[in-house]
């Protein structure tokens, strides 16, 4: 049994929240550079150049890449040989979010109730997804999930008869209807299969994969490539000003499903794709 004290979880989450908001991951920076080489639209190229400057300024001046510093979505892989000591795991994660957002000059964007809409003032609570895994490590992955693109995420229960083609069409429909509102170039995280909530959860988890890395299943990888190509023919372009770069990636995760079901959840993620992870 390996003991991990909550104080190290608080510190790790605090740091992840700040770093995620200031520094985009290298895969995103490569995506900007790659898109600039192919983008035909002058307005689109201009947007991509500004986004590169924005990333550089955010990193060097420690000013958030986007003023919407997001809802913290946290995936935790808890090794079954780990014993968390000194308090609760979830409380520690939320304390890390609290400290990170307050000390990092990050915006508090969470209201305590969807109805009375009073701001909690410190961006807590996070949305936490826990998986128990073999081993003695605690892996914490966080995403600062923007609201504008989240609002364009969608869900559909397809019929098995609609099949693969139905899934492709639905993902494209989500990208088309997200349009300029979701701050393209975007990434679509897609969960296919499982039950209602499992597909939605997978659609978030899929976003943590390195951009451009395909699903290990070649059949799924082929769907990802095809939908990405078709998405980039829609013409929406960077920021919706028209162009060839509407999506940077389509990330699909699948799960076995019921003989009657074909659930498909699509989480829309904007170019402010801010995520970091730590292993304790």
């Amino acid at each position, binding site marked *: 049994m390996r003991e991990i004290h909550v104080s190290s979880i608080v510190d790790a989450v605090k740091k992840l929240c700040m770093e995620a908001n200031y520094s985009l991951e290298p895969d995103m920076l490569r995506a900007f550079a790659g898109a600039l080489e192919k983008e035909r639209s002058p307005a689109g190229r201009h947007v991509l150049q500004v986004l590169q400057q924005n990333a550089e300024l955010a990193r060097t001046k420690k000013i958030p890449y986007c003023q919407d510093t997001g809802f913290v979505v946290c995936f935790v892989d808890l090794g079954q040989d780990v014993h968390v000591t000194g308090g609760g795991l979830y409380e520690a994660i939320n304390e890390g979010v609290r400290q990170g957002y307050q000390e990092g000059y990050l915006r508090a964007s969470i209201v305590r109730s969807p109805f009375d809409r009073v701001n909690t003032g410190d961006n807590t609570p996070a949305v936490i997804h826990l998986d128990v895994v073999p081993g003695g490590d605690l892996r914490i992955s966080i995403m600062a999930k923007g609201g504008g693109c989240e609002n364009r995420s969608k869900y559909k229960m397809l019929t098995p008869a609609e099949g693969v083609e139905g899934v492709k069409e639905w993902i494209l429909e989500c990208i088309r209807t997200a349009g300029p509102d979701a701050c393209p170039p975007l990434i679509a995280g897609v969960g296919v299969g499982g039950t209602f909530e499992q597909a939605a959860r997978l659609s978030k988890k899929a976003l943590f994969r390195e951009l451009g890395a395909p699903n290990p299943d070649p059949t799924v990888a082929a769907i990802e490539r095809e939908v990405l190509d078709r998405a980039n023919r829609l013409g929406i372009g960077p920021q919706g*000003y*028209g162009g060839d770069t509407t999506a940077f990636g389509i990330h699909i995760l699948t799960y076995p499903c019921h003989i009657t079901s074909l659930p498909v959840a699509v989480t829309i993620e904007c170019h402010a794709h801010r995520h970091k992870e730590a292993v304790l």
Partner: protein
Amino acid sequence: MITIGADGTKEVTPPLSDADAESLKAGDRVRITGVMYTARDAAHARLLPLIDAGKPLPIDVRGQIIYYTRPSPARPGDVVGSIGPTTGGRMDKFTPKLLALGLKATLGKGARSQPVKDALRQHKAVYFGAIGGAGAVLSAFVKKLEVVAYEDLGTEAIRRLEVEGFPAIVVNDCHGGDLYQDGMKAYAREERS
């Protein structure tokens, strides 16, 4: 007032007239200098009952620009934190009434409803887009910021910004032009068979 800068970019300085709005076309790059007001969901929700009751608003919107944003907190010594646009469509319900009162422009990101586009034509006004998610870059153009109304709303209070050369693009003009639709048409490609 609108003038043409040396590089062809239109220099926009509120207050704006009908003629100013008419001179702007979808796709025009602009730089805004002077005053803008910030307001988003919560502030708009407070303005609406005042408008409906014919009461005066806490800011005089005639000729002005409303920027849909809520910045992140400023570090000590900075004017403002990250300050990019939020989705304009969430304010669609309120915008035609503000345009009827003489508001000349809104600034945000994302598509507007047909009633807003119709109101832009009717009242001679425009919808500008700023680059969503470029909040760090945009913060450099904000020279001054002060809360002017609804301080109790905290970060959603109405703020008066003084900006210098704030970059934007005309998304919807008052002639029916729509950058999102035109741009998409121009770059949409046939699917591979």
